[in-house]
């Protein structure tokens, strides 16, 4: 990739980080954080974005960032108080800035209408403190041009006489007269004369003082501005005089006559005195254009020149090389490489399983050296796998980060004040899961505010604070990640929900459902349409879509609600999409895998425990309760007739919302960790099947989608019952 294009990408990535810092800082200030470092960090974030934008000439971004930065500068220098109003405006500006950054990334040059309005607000806040010298500049070509009074001689002078006498400060800032003179020699033909009459005897010499002066007669085309530019950095630290060569002054005698200076004598004296070994400045590489008559700029053999320059012959003790960059060192790694490594480790797991199987088939004793070695290999493989998975694990923070802005927007749109509380941002999840969390989460938050929270008036009437609270949390629980979105709104209107479900034919009018079952009706496909939203105080459109997204991730979602108190969505997701702990079972001659996390226990059905409900529907009694017995072979159409329960094994499973069922399979082959292979990648979703895996014998085995199998059977059980 063209290096500049690569840096442009880096810039946009960095912008995202800066935008996150910016928002976090402003939010912290809203909460009362008054640490000056916070406001500094906020300023720097916008300053950085502006700087980079300048490098890539992103005009709209530059303009906005500049005004924003000015306002932030006012705030950090104490001239603008960070009141609630001000911070709210800043947050809106941050949102617009984010949008401008993304528009710039996408090469979208259309105007953002909010930007102009915000610019006015920000300018008003900065109270005209705007630094006008920057605002209209052409960024690329700004130069510091000293004011020159133009003495236009009728004809351009043949050259200039430059008298240059550095003051100590010049050297203190590590400027070097020699280099400046060298730059002059590049501008034309130069005759340089040294004036050393101020140099005291060696004994009185102050190494940090300035004693030398030079007169340079420069002939050529260079104009005064260019000449003065050479001395741009040292303006104020020297005496500088630039005069055009008067006509007729052939260029010899530009100033006062200088006493002859005997360099060699001085050198000899210095060497005698054994002064601190001042090294010579390396003569510039460019050929000296000075004619023989001139004395080239003296090397600082004379201890006139201050602090020994870089080639000091006494190198100091090297700082301990071991002093690395601080604790918690990180490196940036190409995501592709990590993905590839994860794939390879997955293959390793499969291979190791294949090997184990073949060894078993070869009939080697369990205690034999080979079998023992294999066990160790399996241990090692698991450890590698765990470490590798941890690499791709990221805190959910990256997804949670977008939520505050979403909350601000929906809150503004609906006119309901909302406070967002987040917990567990550091909870780590595999990158593959994180990316696919964003949409469902957005949906749920929107719903929580739009439908969950009542209007401020209704809340007041109910004795609740006007500001609604939406709580977002993430935590690890029994090997999965659990994410909850809850609100303190009105809860689900169960009467209404049930009525709608009946109306839409989703349930029969006589069906008796528990409160929880009613709540979870909102997930049914076809539950709501747009017209319902305004009337229903419960949840609205899109919940079935959300559920399907979560299921596609191998997760579960359900809702619990208390009237007038609020509702909570609970999502449970696997820690990673790549690997699964599975129970390998046989069904009708096929080998299938059931996720172990769903399995509560396994049991051998007894004839007296199994009851028929008519048709193929059966239930099995377990510890006093009945659960549906689902014949997996039938459900997947592998067989036409049901398997007699006593000939098979039942897996007691728990699905969403605690619903239980028993899956009837032919036999259990064993437990194994399997690598999940996508079926959708090359085919499409198959009902009842979550994914596929490759077994030890190289054949593909399907991984059961427990929830779908249960749901389908339930539907059938209900119809039968």
């Amino acid at each position, binding site marked *: 990739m063209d290096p500049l294009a690569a*840096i442009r990408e880096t810039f946009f990535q*960095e912008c995202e980080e800066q935008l996150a810092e910016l928002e976090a800082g402003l939010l912290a200030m809203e909460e009362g954080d008054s640490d000056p470092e916070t406001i500094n960090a906020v300023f720097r974030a916008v300053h950085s974005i502006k700087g980079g934008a300048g490098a890539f000439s992103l005009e709209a971004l530059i303009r906005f960032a500049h005004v924003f930065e000015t306002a932030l500068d006012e705030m950090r220098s104490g001239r603008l108080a960070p009141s609630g109003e001000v911070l709210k405006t800043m947050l809106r500006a941050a949102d617009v800035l984010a949008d401008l950054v993304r528009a710039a990334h996408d090469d979208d040059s259309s105007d953002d209408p909010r930007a102009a309005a915000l610019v006015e607000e920000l300018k008003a806040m900065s109270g005209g403190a705007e630094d006008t010298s920057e605002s209209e500049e052409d960024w690329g070509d700004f130069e510091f041009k000293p004011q020159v009074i133009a003495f236009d001689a009728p004809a351009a002078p043949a050259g200039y006489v430059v008298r240059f006498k550095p003051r100590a400060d010049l050297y203190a800032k590590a400027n070097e007269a020699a280099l400046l003179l060298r730059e002059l020699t590049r501008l034309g033909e130069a005759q340089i004369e040294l004036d050393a009459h101020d140099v005291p005897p060696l004994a009185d010499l102050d190494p940090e003082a300035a004693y030398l002066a030079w007169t340079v007669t420069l002939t050529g085309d260079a104009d005064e501005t260019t000449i003065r530019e050479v001395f741009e950095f040292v303006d*104020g630290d020297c005496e500088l005089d630039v005069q055009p060569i008067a006509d007729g002054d052939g260029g010899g005698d530009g100033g006062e006559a200088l006493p002859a200076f005997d360099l060699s004598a001085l050198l000899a004296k210095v060497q005698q005195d054994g002064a601190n070994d001042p090294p010579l400045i390396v003569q510039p590489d460019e050929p000296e254009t000075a004619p023989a008559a001139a004395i080239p700029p003296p090397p600082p053999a004379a201890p006139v020149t*201050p602090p020994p320059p*870089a080639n000091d012959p006494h190198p100091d003790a090297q700082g301990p090389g071991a002093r690395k960059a601080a604790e918690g060192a990180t490196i940036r790694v190409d995501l592709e490489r990590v993905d590839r490594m994860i794939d390879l480790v997955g293959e390793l797991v499969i291979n190791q399983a294949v090997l184990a199987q073949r060894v078993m088939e070869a009939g080697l004793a369990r205690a034999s050296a080979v079998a023992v070695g294999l066990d160790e290999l399996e241990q090692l493989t698991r450890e590698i796998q765990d470490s590798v998975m941890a690499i791709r694990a990221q805190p959910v923070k990256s997804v949670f980060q977008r939520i505050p802005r979403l909350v601000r927007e929906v809150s503004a749109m609906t006119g309901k004040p909302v406070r967002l509380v987040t917990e567990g941002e550091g909870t780590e999840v595999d990158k593959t899961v994180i990316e696919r969390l964003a949409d469902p989460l957005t949906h749920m938050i929107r719903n929580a505010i739009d439908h969950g929270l009542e209007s401020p008036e209704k809340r007041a009437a109910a004795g609740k604070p006007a500001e609604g609270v939406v709580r977002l949390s993430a935590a690890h629980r029994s090997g999965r990640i659990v994410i909850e979105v809850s609100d303190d709104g009105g809860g689900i209107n169960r009467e209404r929900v049930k009525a709608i479900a009946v109306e839409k034919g989703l349930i029969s009018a006589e069906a008796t459902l528990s409160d929880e079952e009613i709540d979870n009706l909102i997930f049914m496909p076809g539950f709501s349409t747009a017209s319902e939203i305004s009337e229903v105080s419960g949840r609205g459109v899109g919940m079935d879509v959300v559920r399907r997204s979560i299921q596609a991730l191998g997760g579960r979602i359900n809702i619990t609600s208390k009237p007038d108190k609020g509702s909570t969505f609970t999502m449970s997701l696997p820690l990673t999409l790549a690997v699964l702990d599975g129970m390998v079972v046989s069904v009708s001659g096929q080998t299938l895998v059931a996720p172990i996390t769903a399995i509560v226990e396994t049991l051998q059905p007894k004839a007296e425990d199994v009851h028929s409900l008519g048709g193929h529907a059966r239930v099995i009694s377990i510890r006093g309760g009945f659960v549906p017995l689902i014949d997996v072979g039938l459900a997947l159409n592998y067989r036409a007739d049901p398997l007699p329960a006593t000939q098979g094994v039942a897996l007691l499973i728990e699905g969403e919302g605690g619903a239980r069922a028993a899956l009837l399979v032919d036999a259990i082959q064993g437990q194994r960790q399997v690598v999940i292979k996508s079926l959708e990648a090359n085919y499409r979703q198959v009902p009842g099947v979550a994914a596929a895996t490759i077994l030890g014998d190289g054949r593909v085995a399907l991984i059961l989608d427990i929830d779908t199998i249960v749901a389908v059977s339930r539907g059938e059980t209900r119809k039968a019952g």
Partner: protein
Amino acid sequence: MSMTVLTVDDSRTMREMLRLALADAGFHVVQAEDGIHGLEVLQAAAERPQVIVTDINMPRMDGFGFIEEVRGDQRYRGIPILVLTTESDAEKKNRARMAGATGWIVKPFNPVKLVDAIRRVAA
């Protein structure tokens, strides 16, 4: 033998742009992310850099602080320091000079001007 330049800037983008411009011009580039890191890098460097280019606004220790530290250290006070600034008002420039900056470069920087400025202060 190429010259070593130490660049100090908290922006990754800026560091990469500087590296690109300087490496293209034949310089050997060493980098740091803020003032404190810059001092660490100076300490650890096998060869002292011949020029330092530093930003002003940085976390932990800003450009002014960094320049003062460098100028206060016997070993490094002679190294020319150029500051990167988008702030072209005289006051900020002056403050940098008071702290001991050798010269300045305006952001967004023109690679040619950057190299010129370096040549003006370093052999």
